[in-house]
Structures are given as structure tokens and as C-alpha cells.
């Protein structure tokens, strides 16, 4: 990535590590990236304009099909073109690399954004949670009735009604003269078509037709609307089974290689896969074309000899000639003598006769027939719409609710009256994964004999991840629970296709990865194990964390202490592992808060990426060099400037350190900030060393911290010449707490402050201090005695000789 970035080229997609994504975004905003290859993810971000947007394709893969880009997506992405204040106009280039309908393009470029459509569905989770509340049935229905889905449906009703009436009008307008006759005629026709179809199906039953399909047999091929005319059978091949599960339809398993009359040049260029018959009058060539059995429409009695070598053109042409000649000499004929078929043939002949005799056949009133057909169509449509109107969405949901309740009852989540049982209560707490399955696992004790690494790995199956093409090599300790999982699924799924269900819910792609990661493998090693993007891994790891938390709550609800403890341990370990992603969340937060110019931004994190990948993380230092705006300052102060606790939103509670300075205008500047893994001397030592490195090894004159012992140790070691003091404000903050319970607290506080501030010399301070302590009998107060020992670190009078830039 780095060499690319140095040349001003970048890549951005959702599978990247969050920090790299962030970095790319920052560099892009700064204009340092000249060309960015991005997915839609990027376009969804805020404030990322470009001069030119290029679409390399108009179709995209959305998980189940290649489709054209929706208008909403197009607007979002093309809207990135044009930077405010820099470009006069934004340029958007669409590379249309295939034929496209004008209308599709128009829809894409000018179309209205996709309407908001409710995809409301009832899950077991929501049903259980509704049932848990009193009078579950009532509330469930209430919720359905008041859902957006129902609202949309009701809104659509008048529209459907209007459509129906319009169609009815149309039907009325259509000429109804001679309707009965037309109807009869139509019926005859339909009947005949059906019979013909039946006969052909009979003929082309593989066991029968194969016998005749020997080399040289003449067959007639018809595909949909195109009639290929007569061809010569060359070979019959049995197709290999198409795949598990799909039952091969009759006859589709055989392919007949047939010499067919093709338009010249059609099958010579490999790019056009579909040959086509020659236009009438056009001189064609014979080619071998694979034909499926159902496409054969007629068989001939005649066989011609086929030369053994078909490659030369002349040989094939000679066959063509022979076929054409035969076609004129022999009428079509079949050699199948089955009473059924004979019967069918007779019926068809009968019908044909009738059809001929019918008065309409002669008049051939095309118009009338068309009218009739149209009318039938309209009537059909009306019926459909009406049935749609009738079957209310509410009814549908009610049925589903009933069915799902039945499943819940079978599994023992609710009892016969719909009262939620213990099992259901546990299931109520899990919504990240498949709630039923997970509860089933828990209650069957699957998690019992796994250690917490295995639990995490197993749980990772329930987290949706990208499909990995890789074959998964499961470690033996993981394979067992997975087997068990499958078995339980088999047991508890009532009426579902088990294999499919297992496929869809269990995604064991990350099991191995999570297992190793949780065992302490470094992230760099872990990403080598799979072809899933590292960003996706982190995303799913975060979801896993959430899932484990829920599982923990469920275990607690059940009262299973050991499992709960195990899970808690797991969650804790997970949080440690996850400090990596969390780090970046916070960076992001800080950066969003400060929307000031960000020159050289990103350099800090960049320098530390390798540090992260190397292994156990001590911390991360971020360069900031920016003025603190008021809001930021307040926040930092609220978080205790010396940075003990970051905002509560960070679950792992990583210490957040800010290094603040004062510029020559007396303004506070946030020099650097850092997230560290723990508050011990080594970490601080690392922090200060890194910081000094970053600022060019200039030791500051003085540094101000709170009374953290490990920090003092670190400073003493790393910056021996720096004057280190404790923040007086912090000390005074603690006064109320430390003097709590002392008689005449108010006067003590006042006196204490007087001692600190009003002493003019060091000797005077010491005298005053002693007097103060003796007077109030505070000799025993440990805090005070410790303060006295450290007095040179904080007493204002002691600090007079150093420059403090009014920070004290």
C-alpha cells in the first residue's frame, strides 16, 4: 500500500483495515491522492469530493446478481464529482462497455431515487420479546397492524383498485361480437397445441428416442421460435450430473451433437457462442451443434451415411446437399408405434379437421381473435389484482406468527398458553446470531466443555462474514463442536431443508482465525490464514464481541454461573484483542471533532501501523499539532486533562493521553494524543520515547502531570533534565475527599490553601505546613505526608525558578 500511496494512488474498499481506510480518506481530502480506486463504500462517506468520477462499469454485483446501478447509487457516486471552490464543474465519466438500452441508461442517470419499501419481517427474536410482555398475542398483532409495512400496503390499495377498474373498462370496450365462436376456436387451438406438446414429450422420452438417435439419423430441431430445419445426428453424449440437489429434468441430461445448417461464420468466431440458422436464400454451412433433447421436434425414418471425418468443409457441405435432397423426397415420418402415440396422433388429426371445419378458420378474422386474446389476458390480470387486494398483509403476518409460535412451542421456548419460559427468556437476549440455535446449543451444554477460546471460535460461526472461497482446515478441537452444531440443527429444525439451513446460518470461515487470534497469535499472522479481507475480520470480530456479551447476559439469566464466568473471561479477552479496532474509532472521533486544517495528518498513525502488526500493542501515538477549540478543550478537561479515562463510550476503557502545550499567544495546543494499553511505567516510557522521537528529540523544559507514580518514574528515566511537577489543580481537587470527616472542614480547606499559596519562601512554606499539620492533628494523614515528601513537585513557591508559560 505504501508504495502506491507515495505515488498518489490509493485503494479504498470495505475490506481494508479501518485505519488504512481512514488514512486513505484523509490523504484524499488533503488532495494527496491523485487517483483513487474506490467502491461504493467510499461514496457513502461524508465530504469526499473529487474532480472527476469514473464508472468503469454500469453493472454491479449485489450479492445475488449482476444488475445495473440503481439511480440512487448513481446519484450518490456521481455526486462526488466537483469540489467546492476548486472546480468549475464536476466531470462524470461512465464507461459503458456493453450494449445498453437507452431507457435503462435514462433510468439510471435521471431516474427517481428508489422508493422506501418496508422489509418488515417477524423474527423469532421479536416474537419472543413481544410475548414476554404481558398479553403477547395482543401486542404482536398490534405491532404488525401499526407497522410501516402495513401502512404501505394500505396506501397501495386504492391504486390497485383503480387499476382493476381501468382494466375492467378495457375489457368491456373490447369487441365481444361472435365471442362464443371465437372462444370455441381458441379452445380448439389450445387443445391442439397441448396435444402436440404431449406427443413430442412422449417422443423425446430419452429411453425411447435414444434408440433412434444413432449417427446419421435425420432430426428436426426447433428452439423456441427459431426453426433449424433438418439436421444429422453425429453423436449423443450423456451430460454429467449438473449438481447435487437439483433433480435433472427429463431428457435434459442428454446432449445430441447434430450437424445443422448454420449461417456462415456464425460458429467460427469463438466470441459468439450461439450459432443461428441461415436466412432463407442465404447460403449456409453445416456445423456440429450440441442440441438438448427437448428441442428435437421431429425424427425421420431416414439415415444417411456420415463420413468419419467431419472436419473438412467439403464433407460437411456434401451432407448438407444430401439432407436438402432428402427433405424434398421424403415426407416426415416416424417409426414409433405405441398405442398411446397413435391415439394422440388420431386426436390431433381429429382436432385439425374440426379446426378446418370451423367457420372462423376460413374467415381468419385476425382482429377478432386478437381482441379475444387480449380480453382473456385482461381478465386474468384483473383476477390476480383482486386476489392480491384480498389477501391482506395482516393476514399473512398472522399466519406467520402462528407458525413461528408453533415452532417456539415445540422447542419449549413458550408453553401452550404462549407464556415465555426460561428458555425463551434466554433467547430474548440474543439478537446478533441465530437466537433459536444458540439457545439450543447453550441448553444442550455444548459450551460446557469448551475453553473460552473455543467458545469464541464457535460463536464466530454465527456472525455473518463474507464468503471465503478457501477450503477450511479446521483444527480438531474445533471440528467437534461444529459437528455437534450440525447435529443439533438437524434435530431442532422442524420443517426446513437442513443442509440449506446449515449452509445459510453457519459460516465457519472465521473459526480458525478467531481461535488463533484469541489464543494470542498476532494479527499479522492471523490475516495470513484466510483470504477474507482484514477489515472484514475486524468488523466481524466486533460483532462477535457484541454477540458474546449477549450470550453472557443469557447465561446470567439462566443462572449458569460457570458458563457466565467463562464468557465474561472471553469477553474480556475479546475486548483486549479488539482494542485494535477500538483505537481507531476514537481517533476518528477526535478528528471529526476538530474540523480544522489537518496538515500532515495521518503521519502519526501511519508510523505506528507496523507497531500494531508486530504484536502486543503498547499504545498508539497520534500527532495532532492543532489549536484546541473550545469544545475540544472542554471535552479534554472533562476527561481529566492528564488523561486517565477516555470517554465512556469506549468499552475497553483504554487510557487516553493528551499532551497539551501552550503557544506563544498563550493558547493551548493539543500537541499529541495517545491511546495506551495500560498505565504502567513501561507504557509511559514507551509513550515518552515515541513522543520525543516524533518531535525531534527536543526535551521540554518542564512537564506537568498528575501524581501518577508510574508516569513520574517514566519521566525521570526518559527526560532526566525536564522539570517535572504535579498539577496543583489536581491536588486541590482531592482536598474535599481527603479531608472528609475532619471536624471544621471549611476552615481546614481555607488554611490549607493559604499554606500553599501564601508562603513566600520555601522555609516559610515548611514552617506553615508544620504548623498546619500540628494544629489540626493531621500527622497521621498519609496523603498529606506523601505530599510533603513530594513537595518540590508541586508547591508553587518551589517552582518559581522555572519558566511555566502560565500553565501552573
Amino acid at each position, binding site marked *: 500500500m505504501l508504495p502506491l500511496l507515495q505515488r498518489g494512488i490509493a485503494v479504498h474498499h470495505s475490506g481494508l483495515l479501518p485505519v488504512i481506510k481512514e488514512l486513505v480518506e484523509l490523504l484524499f481530502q488533503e488532495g494527496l491522492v491523485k487517483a483513487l480506486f474506490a467502491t461504493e463504500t467510499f461514496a457513502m462517506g461524508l465530504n469526499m469530493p473529487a474532480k472527476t468520477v469514473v464508472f468503469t462499469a454500469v453493472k454491479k454485483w449485489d450479492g445475488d446478481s449482476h444488475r445495473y446501478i440503481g439511480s440512487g447509487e448513481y446519484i450518490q457516486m456521481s455526486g462526488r464529482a466537483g469540489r467546492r471552490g476548486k472546480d468549475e464543474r464536476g466531470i462524470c465519466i461512465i464507461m459503458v462497455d456493453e450494449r445498453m438500452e437507452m431507457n435503462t441508461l435514462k433510468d439510471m442517470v435521471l431516474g427517481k431515487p428508489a422508493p422506501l419499501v418496508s422489509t418488515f419481517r417477524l423474527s423469532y427474536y421479536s416474537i419472543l420479546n413481544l410475548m414476554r410482555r*404481558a398479553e*403477547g398475542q395482543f401486542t404482536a398483532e398490534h405491532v404488525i397492524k401499526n407497522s410501516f409495512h402495513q401502512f404501505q400496503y394500505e396506501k397501495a390499495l386504492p391504486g390497485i383498485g383503480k387499476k382493476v377498474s381501468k382494466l375492467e373498462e378495457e375489457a368491456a370496450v373490447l369487441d365481444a361480437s361472435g365471442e362464443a365462436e371465437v372462444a370455441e376456436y381458441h379452445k380448439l387451438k389450445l387443445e391442439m397445441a397441448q396435444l402436440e406438446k404431449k406427443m413430442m414429450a412422449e417422443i423425446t422420452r430419452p429411453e425411447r428416442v435414444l434408440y433412434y438417435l444413432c449417427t446419421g439419423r435425420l432430426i428436426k430441431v426447433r428452439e423456441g421460435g427459431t426453426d433449424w430445419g433438418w439436421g444429422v445426428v453425429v453423436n449423443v453424449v450423456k451430460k454429467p450430473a449438473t449438481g447435487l440437489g437439483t433433480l435433472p429434468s427429463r431428457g435434459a441430461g442428454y446432449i445430441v451433437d447434430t450437424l445443422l445448417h448454420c449461417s456462415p461464420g456464425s460458429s467460427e468466431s469463438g466470441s459468439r457462442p450461439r450459432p443461428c440458422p441461415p436466412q432463407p436464400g442465404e447460403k449456409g454451412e453445416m456445423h456440429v451443434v450440441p442440441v438438448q433433447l427437448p428441442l428435437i421436434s421431429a425424427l425421420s425414418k431416414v439415415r444417411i451415411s456420415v463420413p468419419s471425418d467431419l472436419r473438412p468443409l467439403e464433407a460437411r457441405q456434401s451432407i448438407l446437399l444430401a439432407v436438402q435432397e432428402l427433405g424434398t423426397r421424403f415426407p416426415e415420418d416416424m417409426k414409433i408405434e405405441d398405442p398411446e402415440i397413435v391415439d394422440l396422433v388420431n386426436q390431433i388429426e381429429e382436432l385439425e379437421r374440426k379446426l378446418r371445419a370451423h367457420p372462423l378458420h376460413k374467415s381468419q378474422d385476425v382482429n377478432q381473435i386478437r381482441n379475444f386474446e387480449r380480453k382473456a389476458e385482461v381478465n386474468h390480470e384483473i383476477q390476480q389484482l383482486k386476489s392480491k387486494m384480498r389477501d391482506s398483509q395482516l393476514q399473512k403476518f398472522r399466519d406467520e406468527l402462528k407458525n413461528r409460535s408453533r415452532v417456539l412451542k415445540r422447542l419449549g421456548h413458550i408453553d401452550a398458553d404462549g407464556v415465555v419460559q426460561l428458555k425463551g427468556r434466554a433467547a430474548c437476549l440474543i439478537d446478533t446470531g441465530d437466537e433459536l440455535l444458540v439457545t439450543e446449543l447453550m441448553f444442550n*451444554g455444548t459450551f460446557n466443555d469448551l475453553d473460552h477460546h473455543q467458545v469464541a471460535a464457535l460463536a464466530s460461526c454465527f456472525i455473518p462474514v463474507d464468503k471465503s472461497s478457501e477450503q477450511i482446515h479446521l483444527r480438531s478441537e474445533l471440528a467437534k463442536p461444529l459437528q455437534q452444531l450440525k447435529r443439533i440443527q438437524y434435530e431442532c429444525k422442524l420443517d426446513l431443508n437442513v443442509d440449506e439451513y446449515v449452509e445459510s446460518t453457519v459460516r465457519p470461515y472465521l473459526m480458525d482465525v478467531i481461535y488463533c487470534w484469541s489464543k494470542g497469535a498476532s494479527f499479522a499472522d492471523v490475516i495470513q490464514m484466510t483470504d477474507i479481507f482484514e477489515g472484514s475480520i475486524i468488523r466481524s470480530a466486533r460483532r462477535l464481541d457484541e454477540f458474546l456479551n449477549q450470550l453472557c447476559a443469557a447465561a446470567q439469566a*439462566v443462572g*449458569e454461573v460457570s458458563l457466565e464466568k467463562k464468557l465474561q473471561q472471553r469477553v474480556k479477552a475479546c475486548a483486549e484483542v479488539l482494542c485494535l479496532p477500538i483505537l481507531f474509532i476514537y481517533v476518528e472521533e477526535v478528528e471529526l471533532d476538530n474540523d480544522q486544517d489537518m496538515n500532515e495528518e495521518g503521519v502519526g498513525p501511519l508510523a505506528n501501523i507496523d507497531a500494531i502488526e508486530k504484536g502486543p500493542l503498547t499504545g498508539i501515538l497520534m500527532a495532532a499539532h492543532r489549536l484546541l477549540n473550545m469544545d475540544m478543550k472542554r471535552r479534554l478537561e472533562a476527561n481529566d486533562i492528564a488523561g486517565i479515562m477516555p470517554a465512556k463510550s469506549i468499552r475497553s476503557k483504554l487510557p487516553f493521553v493528551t499532551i497539551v502545550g501552550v503557544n506563544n499567544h498563550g493558547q493551548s495546543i493539543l500537541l499529541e494524543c495517545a491511546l495506551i494499553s495500560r498505565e504502567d511505567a513501561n507504557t509511559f516510557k514507551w509513550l515518552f520515547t515515541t513522543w520525543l522521537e516524533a518531535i525531534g528529540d527536543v526535551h521540554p523544559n518542564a512537564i506537568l502531570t498528575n501524581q501518577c507514580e508510574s508516569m513520574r518514574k517514566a519521566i525521570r528515566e526518559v527526560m532526566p533534565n525536564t522539570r517535572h511537577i504535579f498539577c496543583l489543580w489536581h491536588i486541590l481537587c482531592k482536598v474535599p475527599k481527603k479531608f472528609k470527616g475532619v471536624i471544621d472542614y471549611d476552615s481546614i480547606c481555607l488554611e490549607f490553601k493559604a499554606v500553599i499559596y501564601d508562603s513566600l519562601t520555601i522555609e516559610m512554606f515548611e514552617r506553615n505546613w508544620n504548623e498546619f499539620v500540628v494544629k489540626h492533628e493531621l500527622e497521621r494523614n498519609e496523603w498529606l505526608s506523601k505530599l510533603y515528601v513530594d513537595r518540590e513537585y508541586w508547591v508553587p513557591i518551589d517552582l518559581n525558578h522555572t519558566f511555566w508559560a502560565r500553565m501552573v
Partner: protein
Amino acid sequence: MREIQLSLNQTQKIRLQKALQKLESLHSKVNSDASVTVADTIPISLEDSILKGHGTAERNGEVVATVCGVVERVNMLVYVRSLRSRFKPEIGDIIVGRVVEVAQKRWKLEINFNQDAVLMLSSMNLPDGIQRRRTAVDELNMRNVFEENDVICAEVRNFQNDGSLQLQARSQKYGKLEKGQLLTVPPYLVKRQKQHFHHLVQYGVDLILGCNGFIWVGEHCDARDTVAEEQLNNTEEQNTKSTRVSENVPLETRRNICRVANAVRVLSTLGFSLTLEVILEAFNLSSTLNLGIDEMLVSEFHVLVAEKEAERRSSLTKKKR
């Protein structure tokens, strides 16, 4: 089976015992060795890995009960459902409680739990029915909604981290209960059901079976819009309030209330779990026997109820077969 504190003569004693035995025999077929006392070993099959739930502990490789109660098994989970303990609330339970304190933005309710439950001002519908932020004025007017010693019904919303309980009363059907009686029974007698609010139409009586063993029998009122009215009235005529409570309940309804209440009392003394069916059964029995309300608490009636119940259950089980 615990001793029933009743003064019975010899025949009554024998009849009652017979009835109870009959009941027990009907029941015991389901799971015979289910009830345990503290330190009883719970038999488990060793080859399976089991989950130990509430009320169990492991000791010397055996699973031991830590409370008295009934062993329940769900798949691999084994836990002991304790009897005769304090109420153990679960989310979604309907409870009846009494206000013990009006505090900052909240009421504290006695609900037979090991702590007082908290009903926040913000988790109940305001008398005016509008969804809005609660202001300082609302806070000042809290005593107009509920006062100390008011009886309230509400729903369990969630547990706080410290184990305290939060309630909510966000529906018309929750709120202050007036003109009736509050009965206290052991909470295990009230099973969680689909319906806890019952309106006995023919008697004009509301019956609320709180999961916490507090049972309210009172005059029926329609969806409690009266609270809103009262709020308005209250601000104007505070002092007439005490007279309003007792007015307007017809004698017949009051009798019915007492009769239902006594039926509940009888059943709880006998230790029968309280469902609408059983209560109505006892109610009807008393009225068919032409007993006065006060006579319902006599031991003879207890015996009768027990016999009737035994009969009913046996007929039920017969029907099932």
C-alpha cells in the same frame, strides 16, 4: 405439604386429608422425585454435560440443591424453582404494589421483592396523555398522580446493574387502583399467565393477579381514564378527594368484591395456585351454598373447596385420557 392453620374437627380433618391426598396423587404422576430440600443431591446422568442453573451448586462431584423447591429440567439445564421465597421478578411481569415513597422523579413501591421497585416519572404515561418531556412542574405534581400508600399496578421493565428493579406503566390499563381490596398471598401461588387482568363482567369486579402475590379485587373501571379526570379535579378540589373514593360503589358490587376476595383467601390458605377458573369455582360454590361472605372463611368451607377442587382436577385428567 405444609400444615394448614385451621381449627378442624375430626371429620373435617379426615375429609381434607383425603382431598389433599387425592390432589397429590393426581399431581405426583408427573414427576415424583422433583421436590428437594437444601443439600439434597439432584440425580443426573453423568455421561451428559449438564448446565447448573439457579439454586444448584456442585459439591464433591455431585449437584446439590441450595434451596428448597422443585427441580426443573430444560434440555441439559437443571435448576431448582424455589417455593415460598420472596418474589423473583422477571421482565414483563405484571405486579401490584404499594407506594412507600415519593422521591425525586420516581416512586418507590413495595412489591414483595428484596428491594423496593422504582417507577420513574418518565416511564409512565402522564395524566394528560401527551408524550413529552417531564418538566419540573410534572415533578412537583407527582403526588397528584400517586401518593404514599396508593396501590398501583405496573409492569416490570428491566433490572438495573445493581439489581434494583424498574417498572413501567405506559398503558391505560396500568395505574392507580381504587375502590377495592388488596390481598397478599405467597407469590408462588400466582403462575405467569397470558392474562393477569380479569374483568368479571357479571359481578362488575376487576381482578388483577399480580405476579408478586399481591392481588387486587376492586370495582371495575373502564381503562382508567378516570385518572385524567381526577387529575383535573384534584387541582381544584383537593379536599373533597377523600369523600370521592368511597362514593358510588353499589352495595352489590361491594359484596361481590368481598366474596371474590374471600375466595382468594380460602384458596391461598389451602395453598392452591390461583387462576381465574379456580377462584370463580370457589365463588360459585359459596353462592350456591348460600353462604354469607363472612361464613366463607370458616373451616367447613375450606374443606368443601378442597374437595371440589380435587373432584374438578380428577375429572379434568379423566377427560384428557
